[in-house]
């Protein structure tokens, strides 16, 4: 009994170090920003533009991810086909690719000199150093989160429920809409929000493919390298607050599911 209590204490102590390590820097950052500096940052049109750009590109990337990834997630959850595991592995691949490497790969794939990039540029869609490049980088890094989250949400719904719905007169799409979607919906939504947050926080791939116009993370980095720590702090705090807001929403969805 005593031995176990010591074990508990040790575990709690080790955990506390990690928790402090996470909370400490963030709190320090939040309190380092002077009110005057924050006010100035809010009034800085460049920062406002970069945050607007970030929200716009992250939302676009997420929307594309939903259209391309959610049906795929359903397929992965519901059907068995040859190569299914391989496909799942491919979807998860971006997680292990270092983000600047992903950026370089995207530049090579979508740049004007590649067959695809060249053809798209002819049609007026340019990636490198343009906004679509940001969306591409965000989609690349957030797709695994969206697809695996949605896949798990779908897999958690018993497939028999849809079969019962079919036997009661529903066409496949109707059964999906009336049964699977409502039951998996919250999980899919949580995956969507996480993927969106991943896009907002992306830096490494974006900085390679599109430095300008600057998304918020690139903007903070640029302030840091050009003007030093003090200049980067207000922008960093605002970006952090946006991230925390998203995090709070996800947590709220999560707890509702538990109840």
């Amino acid at each position, binding site marked *: 009994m005593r031995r176990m209590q010591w074990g508990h204490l040790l575990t709690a102590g080790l955990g506390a170090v990690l928790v402090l390590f996470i909370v400490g820097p963030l709190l320090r950052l939040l309190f380092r920003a002077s009110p005057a500096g924050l006010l100035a940052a809010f009034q800085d049109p460049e920062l406002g533009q970069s945050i607007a750009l970030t929200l716009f590109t992250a939302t676009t990337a997420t929307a594309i991810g939903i259209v391309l990834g959610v049906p795929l997630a359903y397929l992965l959850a519901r059907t*068995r086909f040859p190569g299914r595991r391989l496909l799942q592995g491919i979807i998860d691949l971006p997680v292990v690719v270092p983000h600047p490497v992903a950026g370089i790969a995207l530049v090579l794939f979508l740049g004007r000199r590649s067959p695809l990039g060249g053809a798209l540029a002819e049609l007026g869609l340019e990636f490198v150093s343009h906004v679509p490049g940001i969306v591409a980088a965000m989609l690349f890094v957030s797709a695994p989160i969206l697809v695996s989250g949605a896949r798990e949400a779908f897999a958690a719904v*018993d497939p*028999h*429920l849809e*079969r*019962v*719905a*079919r*036997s*009661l*007169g*529903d*066409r*496949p799409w*109707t059964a999906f809409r*009336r*049964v699977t979607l*409502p*039951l998996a919906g919250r999980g899919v939504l949580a995956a969507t929000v996480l993927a969106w947050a991943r896009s907002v926080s992306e830096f490494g791939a974006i900085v390679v493919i599109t430095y300008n116009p600057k998304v918020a993370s690139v903007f903070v980095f640029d302030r840091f390298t050009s003007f030093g720590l003090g200049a980067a702090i207000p922008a960093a705090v605002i970006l952090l607050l946006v991230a925390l807001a998203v995090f709070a929403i996800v947590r709220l969805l999560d707890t509702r599911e538990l109840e």
Partner: protein
Amino acid sequence: MIRLEAVGLRVGTFELRDITLDVPRGGYGLVIGPSGSGKTTLLEAVAGLAPIKSGRITVQGEDVTNRPPERRGVGVVYQRYHLFPHFSVADNIGYGLTQSRHLKAERQARVHELAAGLGIEHLLERGVRHLSGGEAQRVALARALAPRPHTLLLDEPFASLDPATRQDMRHLLRTVHESQGITVLQVTHDFDEALRLGDVVAVMADGAIVQRGTPEEVFRYPNSAFVARFIGAANVIAGMVTRSGSAGIDTRTFPAEFRSDGLALDVIADREGPAHAVVQPEDLVLSRESHASSARNHLAAVVLSMERAGPLTYVHLDAGRRLLAAVTTQSAETMGLAAGDRIVATVKATAIHLV
């Protein structure tokens, strides 16, 4: 009416082969077999939920082989009910009604009518998460019946119910079946259920039907040792048949002797060689002393133990090998049977079924 003709299908590594089955209109068919024999898959094939590779399925006189499940008019009740967790009991029951432009009032009336018939009206406004097994079962049944299917498929509907509820549900199902003229195909692993409910029984093993017929036929004349053991014929004895006399008036059969370790029985056989003898427990008659009768086998036996099961008492015997007899509890008491007693077990040659 449900008719399957040479139906074959494959789900992953699992295969159903050459399934042929006929349940008449308004009939009650039972598919029995051990778990993993393909019973549920067979039901899903009838419902259109498992695509078939070969053969033909006819329901209510119409070829539905290529029809999607929603246009087959077949209701399904799964073993684990699978109620929609995001709907109330009433919305679960009414699920199949909303699609076909049912007016709201009409739909409500139908839901109430079914709930009243199944004794679950008081549950209508509740969620489905905390229902008891029997309640969930009734809701699932009401949901399946709501769109007035001509055919109902039941997958082990009583498996997870307590005995009292099971009795109620059996009665209820029989009533529903008879009053509405619905054709039923039910899966079970319990042969007693088949005897109680079924008009037609099919025994499945490893993805194929190994025997079909009336429950009585299957119970009395199992066509293999597998079926005999599975349906719970307690005395299945492997041995050898040798001819002992000439053929009777019916030239197909002849008197013979069946020999097994420590046991010799007079039997009526239609072939010689290795066979299984199946003796129903109630065909073993127990007495204190042997009554001379040439048409009977008399086996000296010792009572090993007794098991009382309501009106019947099962008596485990050692007659050179173990046998199980069933006598009425009343006669067991009259005889004063007890473990260790030396008795005589008698069985008619015609009551020994050779497979």
